[in-house]
């Protein structure tokens, strides 16, 4: 329990401290220290879960179960590595005069606050607090997206705010309806929104209300997941914000939003006894995968391109969870993990590459492998991993998803085949040109932080060949929990 509290109190404390002294030179290191603290707390928590099993805290308002334990660790871990990446990245940005001391303070404190909101969203047992934390996560990142105050970043932030605000408002409506349904079964108490309670009585929840509630929740949280056609904020926000923020948005926030959708789906499935929720998710997932693939093939901006790739992968996960069943759910969870590892690694590499080139336009980034081979290889391997090349873990999950789909939903496979092919062509043709060939780029003034890139890729590689037993147990238990 102490570890659980520490997990989100550390970033909260970090946010307060860094809000005051974030402009100092050592703030960069302090940021890493706080993230490390969070990660260590999460690791300690994980160790306890491994030995003791699920636990609750603060009057059952917070809990850890197989579905969120690995996400908590993952979030803390990616938060840590992104903070390590931020050090050289933000230093270069400061050198270029893009970051004033005030902005540095804002950046570091918001970064910690963002970790805090995500961890709360993941660990809370209360669907209401989940909503509050999701909204707070939007609010903390929206100022980070516009931190450069360029017209484009303002526009992106505005769209991010309004679209996600409206989305999240729909999710609130859904939560209200959920509460209404729970109210009739559990009674009007503060515990009626506790997920563990709801899960127990999910069979008795009223199907009419729950189907309505799920629509609002899916559309609401789905906006944050980046499902087509409510994805429009995503590429803009990813492309215009600082790269560390793109990394955590893609790697973590989308996961958390999808996590919220899954929690809601479990309840809806229990109430409805029909594949209604799954079918909706299949539809959205498939639409996202296909549309994102076509979006991908017209990109010029590297971060925008990988943002669309995130949409594609979130769509794939949604599709997997929509299909349900032990294998597809397992695959979806695995995909969540490896996608956030790989995608953040790619954004790290892209961040350094874009700083070297002084632009995010892909045509002007060339021959990375010549100037800084490590960045080049990082980008190349990361892209191959995200495109589903084995032995990286993304392939493992895509393997399971596609083979299951072939028998469960054979009509969907041609679309998936088309989309994966188009996405491959789109991404790889550009990455190859960026990594290979002649170059006019210059090395960076500060050594790039490549440890996170290769640690992430190494982990993704490991997950493709070996999944640790306890992780496997969690995945399987969570898959059973999600059912379908």
């Amino acid at each position: 329990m102490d570890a659980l509290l520490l997990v989100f109190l550390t970033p909260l404390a970090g946010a307060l401290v860094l809000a005051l002294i974030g402009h100092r030179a050592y703030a960069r290191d302090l940021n890493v220290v706080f993230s490390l603290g969070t990660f260590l707390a999460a690791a300690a928590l994980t160790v306890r879960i491994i030995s003791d099993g699920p636990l609750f805290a603060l009057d059952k308002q917070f809990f850890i179960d197989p579905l969120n334990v690995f996400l908590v660790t993952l979030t803390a871990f990616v938060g840590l590595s992104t903070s390590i990446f931020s050090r050289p990245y933000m230093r270069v940005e400061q050198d270029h005069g893009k970051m004033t001391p005030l902005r540095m303070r804002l950046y570091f404190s918001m970064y910690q606050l963002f970790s805090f909101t995500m961890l709360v969203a993941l660990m809370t047992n209360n669907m209401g607090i989940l909503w509050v934390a999701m909204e707070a996560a939007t609010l903390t990142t929206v100022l980070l997206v516009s931190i450069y105050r360029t017209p484009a970043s303002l526009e992106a932030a505005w769209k991010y705010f309004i679209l996600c605000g409206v989305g999240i408002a729909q999710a609130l409506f859904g939560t209200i309806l959920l509460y209404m349904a729970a109210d009739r079964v559990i009674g009007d108490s503060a515990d009626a929104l506790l997920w563990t309670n709801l899960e127990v009585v999910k069979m008795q929840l009223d199907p009419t209300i729950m189907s309505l509630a799920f629509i609002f929740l899916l559309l609401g949280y789905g906006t944050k997941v980046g499902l087509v056609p409510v994805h429009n904020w995503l590429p803009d926000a990813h492309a215009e914000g600082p790269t560390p923020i793109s990394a955590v948005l893609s790697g973590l926030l989308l996961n958390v939003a999808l996590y919220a959708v899954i929690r809601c789906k479990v309840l809806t499935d229990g109430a409805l006894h029909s594949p209604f929720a799954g079918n909706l998710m299949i539809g959205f997932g498939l639409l996202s995968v296909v549309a994102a693939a076509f979006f991908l093939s017209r990109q010029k901006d590297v971060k925008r391109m990988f943002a669309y790739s995130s949409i594609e992968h979130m769509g794939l996960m949604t599709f997997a969870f929509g299909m349900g069943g032990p294998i597809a759910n397992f695959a979806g969870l695995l995909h969540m993990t490896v996608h956030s590892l790989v995608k953040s690694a790619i954004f790290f590499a892209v961040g350094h590459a874009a700083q070297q080139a002084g632009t995010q336009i892909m045509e002007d980034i060339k021959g990375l492998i010549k100037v800084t081979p490590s960045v080049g290889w990082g980008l190349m391997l990361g892209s191959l991993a995200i495109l589903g090349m084995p032995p990286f873990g993304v392939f493992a999950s895509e393997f399971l998803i596609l083979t299951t789909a072939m028998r469960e939903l054979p009509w969907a496979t041609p679309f998936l085949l088309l989309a994966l092919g188009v996405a491959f062509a789109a991404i790889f043709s550009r990455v190859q040109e960026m990594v290979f060939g002649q170059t006019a780029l210059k090395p960076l003034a500060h050594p790039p932080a490549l440890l996170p890139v290769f640690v992430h890729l190494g982990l993704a590689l490991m997950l493709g060949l070996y999944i640790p037993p306890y992780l496997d147990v969690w995945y399987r238990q969570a898959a059973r929990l999600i059912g379908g």
Partner: protein
Amino acid sequence: MIDWVLLVIAAWIGVGVLGIAALRQFKLVARILFPLGGLIGLALAFAALSALPRAPEIAILPIGLPQLPFHLRLDSLSAFFLLIIGAAGAGISVFAAGYFRQGAGTPPGLLCCEYHLFLASMAMVVLADDAYAFMVAWESMALASFFLVTANHKVPEIRDAGFLYLLIAHIGAIAILLCFGVLQANSGDYTFAGMREQSLSPFWASAAFLLALFGFGAKAGMLPLHVWLPEAHPAAPSPVSALMSGVMLKTAIYGLLRVCFDLLHLHLWWWGVTLLALGLATALFGVVFATVQTDMKRLLAYSSIENIGLLLAAIGLGLLFRSYGMNALAALALTACLFHVASHAFFKSLLFLGTGSVLHATSERNLGHLGGLLRYMPWVGWLMLVGVFASSGLPPFSGFVSEWLLLQSFLFTPGLPDPFLNMFIPIVAALIALVAALAGYAMVKFFGIIFLGQPREENLRHAHDAGPWEKAGMLWLAAWCIALGLLPNLMIQFIDPVTRMMVGEGLAKQAAASGWWLLAPTSIERASYGPVFFLLGIIAASTLAFLLVRLFYHGHVRRSAPWDCGHPWQTPRMQDTAEGFGQPIRQIFEPFLRLQRTLPSPADTKPFYKVVLNDHFWHWLYLPISRGIEYLARQVGRLQQGRISIYLLYSFITLLFMLFLVQR
């Protein structure tokens, strides 16, 4: 035995890792690591050889997915392909020891790593006994070879070639994956053992077959999916081209055999016909394009397409026989296929290595700038001649045996119960004969233009012969070409357990019945071929003629200038060019090719003539697809048109739509 094989694979990976450790130590990498890799390949070949007749062995590695660790199985089919990988790989590695040069570009250690990972992943592909392990090995193979292809990534064409290669390989891999999805039949059991247990309905079995055909066909270079091959193979360094063409393409054949004859129990006759037709089209297409090429490596690449076509046709015939329960004949067709797999592996590797030596000696790939090299590079030239003969299907070399077996199996089709097929198949046999003859044309052009005649450029006179490593590698492969051609029965003994595993019949018994020297797959009355006697006959007749002429007349020879037809200003450039040599074929098969010609007008003072040959498929299939995707992407792109009101409207409409759905 499987432990030994795994040890060998691990050793390859180890050599690769050592390569990374010795990233820029050229001498170490070239003189020690590559020969070591060759030695390991040899060990693999021996291990595979001893595993061939044994019962299948199974191993489970502790890596993979939690419920699905890597299952490996060493049975006859995989042992046969391991033999090819090991034996051909050994020769190519030894050649590579002398081939890679120090200089800019990819560090030698990295190349070494990619190269050995490529070898190891190919071995893993044929060992894999579950879908996941197979796919991991399969894609690793594609990836390793992609990096090898793009070793010289500063050239935009090479990058394009690499991209096209990996794209098609990846799409094919997804199709294979889906095929496994069908085969596991929702049981959640991805092991091949589990798939063998399933009994699929004809619909699903056909779906699996078609997906496998698409997936493996993409890798093999089957007709509409062949476009990457003539781009990627020439782009790669020569040992890599040799590995890709000689060995990697065979893994696709392996996959097709594995799926069709091991994992699927149902065989429908139209599968065989489909394969036969596609194979034939591929072969014909490949050989016609090979004859009109002007780049030596492209010519060989197209020739690989042709050979793959023949292999596919053989598999198709085998399937056809199998679907009618004629297992002995299916075994004959499959023996032809497997024999050709071996023979193509060796002669095509040999030829690609030879082009590598030529490339090193002359820095020239264009046939129009080569010529007369037999005098300056006798080793390479004569060894290549062996490959050329094998490739043209001339007796008594290895290529002829497979062709002979294939034609024999075609001649048995009258036994088929379907009259329509009975009529269809002789035409196929005739066309196969046409393909074989055209292959001879292409190979004469290939060898004649490079090695014979006068050097077309002055600097060719300074070309040097290959180094000792290169010679050794080529010698090894050439020895295989000759040995396979002369002792086909020996090879058939090895193939026997494989066909026995696939269709329950084998040729070894009959083949052995008439003596080691005589190849008689069914009975000696029906057909027989004795390559040793054949060779002895030719040699005896030629030598006798030689000796007798010496004895009775004289052996005096006078050297003089060639006859110049009374036109004393002959230059080497007056020789027939590569274009000229291909011209008759170009004329006959004009509809096959997409010709773009620029002709000079009679009044031109500086006449200029240019012909560009293109692939119809590129214009009729790939460009429309790419345009279609571009169009769709443009349309989809309109969704994201910048206006926040519109975005809100999407959300609004989606909400209303879903509410409307739920209200009903």
